[in-house]
């Protein structure tokens, strides 16, 4: 689930302790990614599919890689569908959801034919687009009340719900698994750890700020009631001098780029995992081949409630699955 539902997840788990839940989630992901990166730097010329064959044997590795392909294909499909649902609910109310989903997937599929260098540059290019997100956070603090953030651990805190919430938030970083395929393409793989920490620092920091702002403005109770609290935050926020009386349109424009980079990563992940699994030289043939299947998967959830149910299940299996895989590969 993306950044739009982020604060809802956090507030459901921790009440006014939502920022703490988010921080825990970021720390969990950092831990997982560190293991992954360490492993990657140990085998700097191979992707995860390659070295897992050497570590746990060809059969085990093939099964795990196959599951990984399916898993990230599902992640891509659900992200695209969520994007489409938001767009259809909030701005393009008369556009069929299939059209928005397909447009985004097609765009991703076509750009996924590029090589790793272009992939990296595309992400670099979109990096400054986090600034408007920061702007909304800064401007919205005017309506905020620090009282809404107290007590820091939430009222009647429960360890169980904190852990579930933190894991759900760490699942938002599953796309960062792309590191396992980026490292072999790096010129200096030994610098991978540094870039991973930077990346998660920026993304996690922004997530934390968004949760802080949302809960400070709405209070934990109201944050739970919104389907997309981050979008609500943009709707509440005025540009000073009332130049723009609502920032949601501006926010959605920026958010499209965020969704695109996410899809771009997870789609590439799927393609490259499939390439290595079938021992092919090039990932490009898969780009269009997989598209109909992913589109089909995106259309499977019947409605928006069902979609979030499926996403929640998927992210849970993912956290457990990826966690187990990391643990296993690290042991051996």
């Amino acid at each position, binding site marked *: 689930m993306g950044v739009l539902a982020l604060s809802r997840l956090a507030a459901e788990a921790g009440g006014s302790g939502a920022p703490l839940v988010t921080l825990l989630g970021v720390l969990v992901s950092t831990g997982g990614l560190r293991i992954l990166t360490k492993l990657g730097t140990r085998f700097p010329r191979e992707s995860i599919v390659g070295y897992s064959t050497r570590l746990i044997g060809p059969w085990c590795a093939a099964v795990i890689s196959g599951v990984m392909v399916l898993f990230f294909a599902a992640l891509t499909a659900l992200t695209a569908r969520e994007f489409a649902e938001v767009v259809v609910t909030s701005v393009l109310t008369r556009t069929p959801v299939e059209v928005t989903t397909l447009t985004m997937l097609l765009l991703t599929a076509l750009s996924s034919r590029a090589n790793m260098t272009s992939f990296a540059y595309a992400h670099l290019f979109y990096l400054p687009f986090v600034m408007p997100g920061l702007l909304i956070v800064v401007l919205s603090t005017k309506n905020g009340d620090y009282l809404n953030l*107290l007590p820091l651990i939430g009222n009647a805190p429960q360890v169980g719900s904190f852990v579930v919430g933190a894991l759900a938030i760490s699942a938002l970083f599953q796309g960062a698994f792309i590191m396992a395929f980026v490292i072999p393409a790096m010129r200096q793989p030994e610098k991978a750890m540094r870039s991973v920490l930077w990346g998660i620092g920026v993304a996690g920091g922004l997530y934390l700020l968004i949760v802080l702002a949302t809960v400070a403005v709405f209070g934990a*109770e*109201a944050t739970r009631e919104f389907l997309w609290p981050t979008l609500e935050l943009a*709707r509440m926020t005025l540009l000073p001098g009332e130049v723009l009386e609502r920032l949601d349109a501006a926010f959605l424009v920026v958010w499209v780029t965020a969704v695109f980079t996410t899809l771009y990563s997870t789609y590439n992940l799927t393609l490259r995992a499939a390439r290595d699994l079938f021992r092919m030289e090039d990932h490009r043939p898969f780009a269009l081949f997989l598209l109909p299947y992913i589109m089909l998967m995106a259309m499977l959830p019947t409605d928006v409630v069902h979609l979030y149910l499926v996403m929640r299940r998927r992210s849970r299996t993912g956290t457990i699955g990826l966690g187990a895989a990391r643990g296993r590969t690290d042991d051996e």
Partner: protein
Amino acid sequence: MNDALQQLQQQVADKLFLGHLRIIVVSEDFARQQGMEALSDFLVRHPEVRRTVWVVVSKGSASDLMQTAPPLERVPTVYLMSTLDHAKQLGKLPNDFFGMFVSKVAMRGREPILPYVEVMQKDNVNISGLVMFRRYRMAGTTARPFDIATYMLLSGVQPGGYTMMVQIPGHRETVMWQAYLRKRRITVRIENGRPHFTVRVHLDGNITEKSSEGVNLDDPRVLAAIDDAVGQKLRSNLDAFITLTKALHTEPVGFGEFVRARQPGYWDRYVQTKERWEALYPDVKIDFVITVRTHRVGMKAV
């Protein structure tokens, strides 16, 4: 609500667009009997409606209020809207737009308020107070004009804009005293199993008018006496406001939020829900520590 809009759509040619909706008027009867629940739900669900839309409660029917405008104003709605916007800028009305209502109604230790507006004679409107709620249903209105200022002081809303008339102690003369900055700090501790609040309130203000030449403002003792008189008046206003809200079993200031945030152990054990907090509220003790400072006396020396 949606049904009403569908009916309306049947009667107009163009597609209704709610993105430019700026003010929603609800009659007092509706707010008391139906409550705001269904309306609020519709507005939150609807993608076009702004969160910054004003929702006001009218004394009497809503349609009367919407048609009211001075002859020079072309669009009645714009007149109504600018009345509210300007009142907000002048510090005479808290910035409680619809989004705030949604947040506060969900909070466990606080109730929402909305502006209470009535039609005066001669085609103009008057913001006559605040409507207080219990959850989505109207519980009552503030009783006196100054209660808006008291509410804003207790909620720490800036800027200060209200003027009060005070009699200078020991003299017959009165002065008009206008606040420009409000400060409040609320602390809570638990005493004998009940929350006990201490509210430190500070007002900065100026003297804007003096009733006669009989007293000289050029005297620090007179200014200090005025500060005292303002403080006393403030205290009686604050007490009256608290008594009113206690009688209505509604809690617009958010003392409960302070308990929830600052004394979570107590809250989790004894309160937890809004209903229980409102049952407890009439029994809590609230003390005021008031300081007032007159900063300027205008462009006249005496």
